[in-house]
């Protein structure tokens, strides 16, 4: 797998934007800003999925994450908003920020040095050996072609993964009931007793 031409440029742009938005999510002062940056990061990840020819997952990502989960997040932020964090004296971070940052940098650098020898192995030694399916032009799975991904995922979900699919629907039902039970107030509890 190797992206060429504009796809390569697009990968770097999207990767950079995703990482920057992730850092903004973690460092933003207000939770609402954090949620908006997270929406931007999730849309970038969905575009990366399209770059990887997984259109169905990209659509699910937009619909479920951006349309469902993030709206839930924004609602809860507005329910719970104390507006205390707008003042500069309020602490944003716990005491373990510097250990976390140092650990994260150490992990990132060590992962880079562990993976960079492997990088050449994934690359054909001379550029003419690149497979046609990988070229991205005038081939059945190149850019500009709607891939078979949606059909394949649907078939796999209803054939090989039918039981986990049903269990997932049950899990969603349980989570729905649990969230309603957890979030109701004492007034509503008295109302139903």
């Amino acid at each position, binding site marked *: 797998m190797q992206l060429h031409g504009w796809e390569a440029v697009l*990968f770097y742009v999207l990767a950079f934007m995703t990482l920057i938005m992730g850092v903004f999510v973690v460092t933003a002062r207000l939770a609402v800003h954090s*949620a908006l940056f997270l929406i931007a990061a999730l849309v970038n990840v969905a575009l990366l*999925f399209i770059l990887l020819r997984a259109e169905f*997952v990209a659509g699910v990502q937009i619909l479920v994450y951006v349309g469902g989960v993030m709206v839930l997040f924004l609602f809860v932020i507005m329910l719970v908003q104390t507006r205390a964090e707008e003042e500069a004296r309020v602490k944003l971070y716990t005491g373990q920020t510097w250990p976390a940052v140092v650990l994260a940098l150490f*992990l990132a650098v060590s992962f880079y040095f562990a993976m960079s020898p492997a990088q050449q192995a994934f690359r054909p030694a001379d550029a003419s050996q690149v497979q046609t399916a990988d070229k991205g032009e005038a081939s059945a799975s190149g850019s500009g072609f709607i891939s078979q991904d949606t059909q394949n*995922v649907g078939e796999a979900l209803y054939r090989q993964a039918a039981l986990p699919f049903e269990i997932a629907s049950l899990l969603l039902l349980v989570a729905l009931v649990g969230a309603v039970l957890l979030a109701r107030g004492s007034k509503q509890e008295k109302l139903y007793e």
Partner: protein
Amino acid sequence: MTRKESRLSFRRIVSLIISLAVIAAAAATLRRLLAGDPLFFNRFEPTLVNFMMLSFLLFVVGVAGVLSRRNIIIIFMSIELILNAVNINLIAFSRYLQINQATLEAKLGSGINPISGPVFTIFIIVVAAAEAAVGLGIVISMFRNRETVAVDEIDLLKW
């Protein structure tokens, strides 16, 4: 006042370093291009490893957020970042298997199933949605009882 000035100078130093790095990278690129290296751009075209690096960096950002923030809602958002990093990894591996299916099946025998990547990703998204719903329900009921969303003030179970 002094704090603001020092922060500004810190920003200036960081932007100076970044712009120097960009200029150095551009100069190196120009030098290699003028030297006429045919495989020069090939080296920068993203492969599976680049997707894994992106995924790992996103994961690390999420872990740093979980460990360092006080607001429990932002901790939940960092968990979503972590789950997305895993999804990128799964989809990239699935794409890699899809492209190299013939080669890998010649080497390892049949049983390569590239579609399991997106299927697992969909299940991860479902579980993430359920987790967010239940977690935010807990946050609401906790805020109702304790009037706070800061994780270091929620220490009832600490001895």
